[in-house]
């Protein structure tokens, strides 16, 4: 059963269309991440699911019932806001009981629920404090607690971690993941952070300028991005894009990077179908799919690779890995490699590209080839 379906959804504010024909569906228990740059319409989409905004056209279904005209309280959802939206004059306990009070749940059940959630989130000692007396991380927990006192059909999160510092963000991220595994409710999670999306979601919806670019599993989004935008947005450091051409050599197709020495990088044979000799392409390689030529990493894993000469401009050691800013055939690129074998700035070195993992895009439309 699909617990959330969005069909041909459009939303306009005046003459500005902020959501353009969105289609999305989530199975029961799924964790869907809505990801995209700021202003792409993620919060608007979430508000529409919550019933806080109306739709211009299209349908929203929760558990196969059209809820377009249902009030937020009748949709059986719980939501965590980016600003936490804790009621400032109420204690933590009152913040959490307010919703139950509105739904006329008896006092005994309320107390039981508060106890369960407070244990789960370890906020027992905070129950009698006001939100103003809490730290950012504690407020975040309380906001989650307010959602968890319900057993809703859908959990909605709007960038719940973006106001936390980096370390706390990572901690809360894994806690949210654990919670989802325990509670098992369908969740829609908005974030602009692609790492959050990758780590948490069972499926990721990548949005850009009001258009759903791709909706798939994290693995599929990462390995076979549908277009240049998705390829560039997901993954850090960004995927490298080279202007290149397809050449045919005997029965084998290959890629030649523009501006280089004309070396042909042979493509695996399963990538031939739509390509033609002489075609211009955007050649995409993720930074971690380069490796020092002498390692022969791709071959050891049974893959195919080709060697390219690289000139190193600058390095950024992060400790766990070293990021290299390099030139390949005169075009800027980024490579991630192990710190031990890393070349120094100014040095030339041969790297190999794992050709199984590369992406090709149409340079005009940006669509994956």
């Amino acid at each position, binding site marked *: 059963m699909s617990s959330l379906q969005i069909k041909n959804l459009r939303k306009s504010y005046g003459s500005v269309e902020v959501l353009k024909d969105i289609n999305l569906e989530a199975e029961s228990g799924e964790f869907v991440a809505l990801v995209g740059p700021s202003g792409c319409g993620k919060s608007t989409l979430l508000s529409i699911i919550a019933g806080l905004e109306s739709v211009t056209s299209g349908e929203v279904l929760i558990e196969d019932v059209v809820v377009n005209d249902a009030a937020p309280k009748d949709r059986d959802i719980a939501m965590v*806001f980016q600003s936490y939206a804790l009621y400032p004059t109420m204690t933590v306990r009152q913040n959490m009981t307010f919703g139950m009070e509105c739904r006329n749940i008896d006092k005994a059940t309320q107390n039981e629920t508060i106890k369960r959630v407070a244990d789960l989130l370890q906020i027992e000692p905070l129950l009698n404090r006001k939100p103003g007396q809490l730290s950012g991380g504690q407020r975040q927990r309380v906001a989650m607690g307010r959602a968890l006192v319900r057993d809703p059909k859908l959990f909605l999160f709007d960038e719940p971690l973006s106001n936390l510092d980096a370390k706390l963000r990572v901690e809360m991220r894994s806690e949210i993941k654990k919670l989802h595994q325990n509670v098992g409710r369908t969740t829609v999670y908005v974030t602009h952070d692609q790492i959050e999306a990758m780590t948490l979601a069972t499926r990721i919806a990548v949005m850009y300028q009001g258009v759903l670019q791709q909706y798939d599993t994290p693995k599929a989004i990462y390995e076979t991005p549908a277009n240049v935008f998705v390829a560039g947005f997901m993954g850090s450091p960004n995927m490298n894009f080279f202007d290149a051409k397809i050449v045919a050599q005997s029965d084998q197709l290959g890629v030649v990077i523009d501006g280089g020495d004309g070396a042909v990088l042979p493509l695996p044979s399963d990538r031939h179908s739509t390509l033609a000799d002489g075609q211009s392409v955007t050649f995409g390689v993720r930074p971690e799919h380069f490796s020092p030529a002498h390692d022969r990493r791709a071959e050891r894993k049974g893959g195919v690779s080709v060697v390219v000469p690289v000139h190193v401009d600058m390095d950024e050691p992060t400790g766990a890995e070293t990021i290299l800013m390099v030139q390949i055939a005169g075009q800027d690129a980024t490579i991630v490699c192990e710190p031990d074998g890393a070349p120094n700035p100014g040095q030339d070195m041969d790297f190999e590209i794992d050709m199984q993992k590369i992406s090709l895009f149409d340079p005009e439309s940006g669509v994956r080839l």
Partner: protein
Amino acid sequence: MAEATHEAFDPLATGSRRRQIRAKATVYGLLLFFALLYLSPLFIIVMNTFRPLEEIVREGFISVPGLLSSQYWLEAWSGFCLGGTCEGVSPYFTNTLLMTVPATILSTAFGVVNGYALSKWRFKYDTWVFGLITLGVFLPAQMTLLPWAFVLGKLGLANTIGGLVLVHTVQGVSFTTLFCRNYFVAVPDDLIKAARIDGAGFWRIFRRIILPLSPPILIVCVIWQFTGIWNEFLYGTVLTSGTNQPITSAIVAFSGSGTGQRHYNVEAAAVIFAALPPLFIYLIGGKYFVRGLTSGAVK
């Protein structure tokens, strides 16, 4: 917050010792001078409430009192003849109280609800509604006199305190709506959204979330309305007469009753009775008034 920053920087405590002394002397000297200037009418009036009439006539209005007597206070309150009755200002004081208290409560209550609805429940043309309501702020009272006289006549409220309550409530809603709406705009919309998802409706959100955030602006509205309505004079003079007048209109009779003899001491005491409640409200509430106007709803 604001107070802390004021303390943190004291421009009078910089520079050389002599500059500091000179600067402080100048500033405090000027402050003292103007304080005395503004307080002198009050001081003179209070002095005259205790002086016998012949002493005032003999020595003039501004003079140190020789013989002190509190009988003029009593006379002003309950014996003095004013507007045809000889019960002092107390009936008019009661009139004003009966007008001011309900009108203050009603206009504040309507203003809070208006402000909440206009800032948190956006509807079509809401900015127009807000604009029209607050137009009343800029509408001179003289322009509304005749329409009000007409309306009160039709409603059978002509020359009644109830009529004045209606007038002041309606006129006051412009101000209270403006104050409250601008205050509530600073309350994050997410609070309302969260409450709606929690299942609360318009009035529950108002009672449980908005009202508990409102004391600062409620105090502003109450002080503003109470002092404004208490001191108001034009409506009272035009729309009521005789024993139905509020105190501000009633004491106009001092100016030209034509009896010849002026009772300066009794009149001074009567004027102080008329001014006492707003003065009192300012004294206890002034601090909260400023705080309410400058504080946000949510820190």
